[in-house]
């Protein structure tokens, strides 16, 4: 709220601020700032110094949802903020050093874990990045991971669908803290290779309080056979730029989380195990992804295939409750302990495919199909293993002002279906503004 007040004051006084004499060049540690004279929706409040800039963006997404698992005989209806994110980013005093800080006010501080393992969900990004050249960047901090599926590379406000696919939701941690490198290499003709190296906690935002187990090591290689997308279009789902020539990126990702302490790396510290001496021992979690994004003349298609596996140490003899108490796996065989540990990890495969077309009247129509295939011993994340979605969007100012209506059908696995329920139908309506 304080920031909003600040923004309001800045906006109210923009004219006066712009009157500051431009001949006053910044000197030493004091920089004269200027407000950008013009404004377009989505640009945020932009302040410039002689060296760089800082922007303040606020997005709000309000949603209505109606779901039913028995043919709308009984409905669950809700209204909610889906996102309300304040983002500050810039490079105000050194063009090679940028920062990014983002808070989502629609979250709250209640976490899935309690006590010493609690963490807050509001902070989504806090990053310091050093770019020695435009094609190389090293960063340290919290941000959406490069080594998740391509859907997570797209900001929530720029997604085509209201929520991420079932496959991404099952296997992607989204946010994580660590050190990352991003490069860009021309490899002949218009071909581009972008490698991403990642060394993170593997515990998402929960790792901000305390790290459990080892680190998560990951690599992504993105291959662009037809040059870069226009205006950073690979970071948005819909083909707003209406690419005049086909654009494609194909990505391959592999990561290993040495010592995973949650189902998919979302809330580290949730599941802890110990050996005979009650030293913490954790399974290793491996994830591999192939994904792509294609755009051409208003049409886009996005897809991902994900496979995960785990290596469970044989030295595990018990688990820690959230309270911190150690409970031995009394009477369980090695195989039973192995399957018990796996039952708290999202293990299996899945693929998601989505495509859509943006009409010239700024209407878009898209569809998505996701399929989850769980291992025999795994957490129960894939009860609804076939997921269908259709969405109609009216863009009033690109992704910065849009209205969306989505219908989803999440079908239960055959052996879980009953005479009264074969899946869940969901209707959603969302209004998005990005200031």
């Amino acid at each position, binding site marked *: 709220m304080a*920031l909003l007040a600040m923004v309001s004051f800045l906006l109210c006084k923009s004219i006066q601020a712009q009157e*500051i004499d431009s001949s006053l060049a910044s000197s030493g540690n004091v920089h004269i*700032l200027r407000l950008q004279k013009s404004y377009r929706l989505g640009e945020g409040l932009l302040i410039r110094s002689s060296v760089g800039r800082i922007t303040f963006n606020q997005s709000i997404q309000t949603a209505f949802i109606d779901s039913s698992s028995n043919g709308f005989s009984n409905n669950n209806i809700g209204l909610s903020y889906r996102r309300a994110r304040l983002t500050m980013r810039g490079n105000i005093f050194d063009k090679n050093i940028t920062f990014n800080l983002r808070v989502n006010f629609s979250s709250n501080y209640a976490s899935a874990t309690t006590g010493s393992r609690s963490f807050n969900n509001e902070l989504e990004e806090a990053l*310091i990045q050093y770019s020695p050249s435009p094609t190389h960047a090293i960063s340290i901090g919290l941000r959406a991971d490069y080594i998740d599926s391509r859907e997570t590379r797209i900001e929530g406000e720029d997604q085509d669908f209201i929520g991420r696919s079932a496959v991404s939701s099952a296997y992607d941690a989204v946010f994580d803290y660590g050190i990352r490198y991003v490069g860009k290499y021309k490899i002949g003709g218009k071909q581009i290779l972008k490698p991403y190296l990642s060394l*993170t906690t593997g515990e998402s935002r929960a790792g901000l309080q305390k790290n459990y187990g080892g680190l998560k090591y990951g690599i992504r290689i993105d291959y662009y056979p037809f040059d870069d997308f226009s205006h950073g279009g690979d970071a948005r789902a819909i083909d707003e730029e209406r690419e005049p020539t086909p654009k494609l990126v194909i990505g391959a990702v592999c990561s290993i989380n040495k010592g995973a302490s949650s189902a998919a790396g979302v809330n580290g510290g949730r599941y802890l195990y110990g050996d005979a001496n009650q030293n913490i021992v954790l399974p290793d979690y491996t994830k591999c992804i192939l994904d792509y994004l294609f755009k051409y003349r208003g049409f886009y298609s996005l897809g991902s295939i994900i496979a995960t596996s785990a290596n469970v140490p044989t030295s595990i003899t018990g688990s820690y409750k959230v309270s911190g108490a150690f409970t031995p796996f009394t009477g369980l065989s090695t195989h039973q302990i192995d399957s018990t540990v796996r039952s708290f990890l999202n293990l299996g495969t899945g693929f998601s495919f989505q495509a859509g077309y943006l009409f010239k009247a700024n209407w878009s129509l898209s569809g998505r199909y996701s399929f989850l295939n769980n291992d025999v011993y795994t957490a129960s994340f894939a009860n609804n293993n076939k997921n269908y979605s259709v969405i109609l969007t009216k863009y009033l100012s690109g992704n910065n002002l849009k209205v969306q209506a989505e219908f989803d059908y999440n079908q239960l696995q055959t052996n879980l279906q009953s005479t009264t329920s074969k899946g869940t139908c969901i209707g959603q309506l969302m209004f998005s503004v990005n200031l």
Partner: protein
Amino acid sequence: MNLIYVCTLLLVSTMVGAQSVSNLVPKDSTLLYINGEGTFLRLGKKEGATFNLASTIQSGFQFNQLDSASSKTNTNRLSLNLVRISFTASGLSDKVSLGVVNDFTGSSGLLEGWVGISVLNNHGKLTLGQRQTNTNNRLAMADERYASVMAQSLAGKSNDGIVYGGLMQNFVGSTREGGIFFETNFNLNKWRIYPSVSITTGKGQNFFTTQSAPGFKYGGRIDVMPLGDFKKNGAFVADDIYRESKPKLAIGIAGSYNVQANSPIGSDNGIIAGIYKGGVATDANYRKLVADAIFKCNGFSLVGEYINGTIAGKNLYTNSIGTKQLTTQIASTLYNIGSAFNVQGSYINTDGWAFNVRYAHITPENYIATSLVHNQTWFTGGINKYLSGNALKIGLNVNYIQDNNSVLLKKMLTGNLAIQLIF
């Protein structure tokens, strides 16, 4: 002598900078960014208002080796040490001020929230809210952004004590408290005097919830600067980051009396139970005495701090029928009682390289195996590099903590590498 004072100095110093610019072009508003202090908006020629927005990100890596029972355990941690958004404002010719500090590392979002009113013709300030309290040791009154030892703090608290060292870890806990604060300042010949008093909850950073015991904490502090004011908030910053061109000295004494403190350091809420007086559940009163000094000149800085924590209370028992008296031995298992001193020195050169060393020793008043305060020795050595003013700081430090009372003679070696950006 606290955040208000620090912020006021920041604002004043900033306005001096802004005024030097404004003198060239007299406009009725300025919008400035100052490296390490954030964005400042000043509005109006007369009873103008000044707004400051400063955000901080500190990322860190920690290596930790615990040597206990002839067994060494190595752990490491990647973490965000500090994530803050701070908004402060003053208006009506500085007659009214307010501050909101959000911290996103802990499990509660609001670290500070206060409103201040200028009184006594601008010679005094009355503040209500939660902010850095005035009754702690000198370096516990500086914002964590200015700490010379960079390490993790969660919602303004340091779990491992590395940021502030042994004094903080054993006798301070949280640096913020909710309550009402009054501070003033005046000259005595060439001396600058800063007295302040406060009445706080005595329950630490719990101003946003109901406190479970009726007693308040009463405290005061006086700082004397015989060689005049320090630059900005330099009297409460360990390194001489503003490079005092002339010798500067500050000597401070603080004391507090926490009535019915129900946590070991009087910095939390509802931790201690099982003390009775006349068959009625109660708590002991927690007293704290602080003496400290800081000297700075041309990049050199020397800080000395002393804390003594004791409890007070008559006819206190550990059972409701009043047969088991609360002895000092038993009290030492409930409260952090004892004393500690901290000495640290640093030098920062004109290129922004800073070298620091710190030594602290903690002595319990009484010791039994379950006492909270142990006889400990803390050593720290570190290097910081300040860039672009104080906007960017990179730090490396090594800490050695020896627990002399532990049966296992526990030793801990901790190294931190951190980078901090203020924008």
